């Protein structure tokens, strides 16, 4: 195995020292998502050495691993048993740790059908800002004892503590996945067709639209693909695994632009401006947009349809990155931060300026 090391004690000491001096720490896995979130300050605390799969029971559909375990190592172990991480986490630059995947809360193309990190996280061991090692949740599918604090860590950008160990629900990998190409036209043309397919129970596991190109990934037998091709007048294309991986990891040419990249999360059927320039995933629920337009304009655009926007890459990393919160929600967030990290040492400012 790549690395199998329990560094809980040294990490705990580092946190206690930092807390004693109110000295901020920047939590660092592989650094594959260093571009993401706001600029933070503090001494880097490397978590990558704290690595290794602790237990994996394929028939229990659960894997437990240390936070620094490479996603790749986890995926390899799962693949061997015909299983997968259902949220298809991105591996930017081919890297990434499981702790970072959970903390960033990011999911890949399978998200609407496979779930997000928060959906699949069953439990964790957390090192909080007081240097305490806390266990929340567990390794079982259903657990409602106490507040669900482990899921709260998903997407918290490491601001509440160090994820020492995580237990994640895994699923059987579909034996076969195929890619379909939809006829040309923009999103507004293809949406009704996609919606029809979804309602009719076509086992879609990913969707992609950019300009006039539209692809769907479906999990079913070749016979079924033939029927789908006929019924919906679509075309089947082979060997698209690399394409979906490149979409997941943002390696497609589209992502090579230099302007600020916005991530728009909106209700799938919503219509918004600038659609022709966007790359859409999640059957329309996730849209990527390179744009020089002021953030406030973009945020207004998505707010109108009940969504939110993140300045994902490029642009001013010290400004507003994540969508601003209702003041009362912001207060609750600060209150929770104080429960887990009273000295404010973990990734200060990485998520929101004031915590």
């Amino acid at each position, binding site marked *: 195995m790549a690395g199998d090391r329990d560094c809980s004690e040294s990490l705990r000491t580092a946190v206690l020292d930092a807390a004693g001096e109110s000295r901020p720490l920047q939590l660092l896995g592989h650094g594959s998502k260093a571009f993401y979130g706001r600029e933070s300050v503090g001494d880097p605390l490397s978590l990558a050495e704290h690595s290794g799969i602790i237990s994996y029971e394929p*028939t*229990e559909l659960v894997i437990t691993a240390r936070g620094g375990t490479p996603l790749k190592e986890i995926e390899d172990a799962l693949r061997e048993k*015909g*299983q997968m991480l259902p949220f298809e986490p991105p591996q930017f630059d081919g890297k990434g740790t499981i702790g970072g995947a959970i903390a960033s*809360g990011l999911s890949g193309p399978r*998200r609407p059908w496979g*779930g*997000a990190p*928060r*959906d699949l996280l069953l439990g964790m061991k957390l090192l*909080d800002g007081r240097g305490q090692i*806390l*266990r*929340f949740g567990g390794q*079982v*599918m*259903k*657990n*409602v*004892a*106490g*507040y*669900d*604090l482990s*899921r*709260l860590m*998903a*997407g*918290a950008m490491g601001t509440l503590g160090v994820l020492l160990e995580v237990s994640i629900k895994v699923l*059987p990998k579909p*034996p076969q996945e195929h890619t379909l190409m939809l006829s040309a036209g923009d999103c507004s043309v293809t949406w009704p067709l996609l*919606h029809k397919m*979804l*309602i009719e*129970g076509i086992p879609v596991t990913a969707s992609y639209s950019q300009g006039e190109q539209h692809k769907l990934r479906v999990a*079913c037998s070749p016979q*079924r693909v033939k029927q789908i091709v006929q019924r919906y007048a679509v075309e089947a294309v082979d060997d698209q695994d690399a394409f979906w991986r490149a979409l997941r990891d943002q390696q497609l040419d589209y992502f090579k632009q230099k302007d600020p990249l916005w991530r728009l*999360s909106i*209700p*799938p059927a919503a219509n918004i401006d600038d659609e022709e320039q966007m790359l859409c995933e*999640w059957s329309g*629920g*996730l849209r990527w947009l390179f744009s020089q337009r002021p953030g406030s304009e973009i945020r207004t655009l998505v707010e109108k349809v*009940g*969504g*939110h926007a*993140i300045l994902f890459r490029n642009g001013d990393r010290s400004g507003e990155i*994540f*969508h601003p*919160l*209702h003041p*009362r*929600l*912001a207060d*609750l*967030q600060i209150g*929770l931060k*104080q429960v*887990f990290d009273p000295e404010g040492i973990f990734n200060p400012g990485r*998520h929101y300026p004031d915590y």
Partner: protein
Amino acid sequence: MHDRLTLAGEFRRMLPEECVIYREEELIPYECDGLSAYRKVPLIVLLPYTAEQVEEILRFCQQRQIPVVPRGSGTGLSGGALPHEQGVLLSLARLNQILEIDSENMQARVQPGVRNLAVSEAAKPHGLYYAPDPSSQIACSIGGNVAENAGGVHCLKYGLTLHNVLQLTLITIDGERLTLGSGSLDAPGLDLLTLITGSEGMLGIVVEVLVKLLPIPQRQQVVLAAFDDIESAGNAVAEIIAKGILPAGLEMMDNLSIRASEDFVHAGYPTEAAAILLCEVDGVDEEVSEEISRVREILQQSGATEVRAARDEQERARFWAGRKNAFPAVGRISPDYYCMDGTIPRHQLGRVLKMIGEMSKRYGLRCANVFHAGDGNLHPLILYDANNPGELEQAEAFGGEILELCVAVGGTITGEHGVGMEKINQMCAQFRDEELETFHGVKRVFDPLTLLNPGKAIPTLNRCAEFGAMHVHAGKLRFPELERF
């Protein structure tokens, strides 16, 4: 101490007359939830019609420091909606409108008092349904489902309430209205939606819920398999999953519950079997046929004595009716029963059932087992008679021991029914002081005066200290032979 009549007068100035219930005889129906062994008469019951009225009530209660216990349909099994003698019981039953079915986005916006099944009924004309299906679905409310993170027999494939809720409107104790989550697949900031789901009415009142709807599967097919020992049934479950099949539902019942259900609903169960498994597969026609034949094969190889697929929709409904009515069925063979809700890693099933069998002998109380086998959620039903002095206490002690066993094998004291009042002592077995303190810290962020559902869900450290002292006899832990997790 608050005076009932004075307070009633004040609430009647705020709310329509019929919303304020304060006469002793009218309060009685509210004295318990589905866990009827615990009863308390509330000071007052309030039944508002609108979210604005809820805001006003909460603001008033915060100002006067009056405890507030939220209540949905009162089907909860852990005493979560058990009233507070000095407090308001706030029923959400009249916020019962389905506000919107959005078939384009496959979502439904509903008020908290809407019954679980009513959502699927309303979505049906659009070819959609709401997946979480607790056995109590004809009665329980969506608000109560959110508060308990309710599961159902189909949550192995389709997830718990948490996985099917997109957005909540929450009113905090100071009367502020908040929107958590969004109509899209994520929302900015910390994921408070997940924190509120399953928080048992301790952090705020849910007044609106946006749920996800799914397309009704083209075909659903259920297979019933009989086994002459429980262990083989457990292994069959593991085998199905190991073969990469994710059934829509995968349920197990033991002999006592099979017989009780068969007597009650005539589901056609084999009453001689030590255990039965119900395995449901859904999807498009050919794929269902294909998967069913694989399931059949696996079941036979795992030693099933009989494998039977439901021949038609009626038979399928009957197979499920037996399972879904297991609790009331057991209720017919015993004056009282006490329902437990532990979750265990599935591979521990054989061992746990054996130990429960031993406890049953030791306590002299029968125990029927119903099991959400796919996700390891075990419902032992302890049969007792409250009219026999001491028997309730024995049943509680037996139940407590089962829950601690679940923790000891790496599981949890509650999979879906919540801690409420009932399992508050067992929380001390599952969590350490630092963890409990963190829970209290979170509670204070939302409800600094601890007025919402006080005394439930999270025990005080003092309580645990007392419980521990009475529990660890002569320095000995329970189940010393088991490895600790």
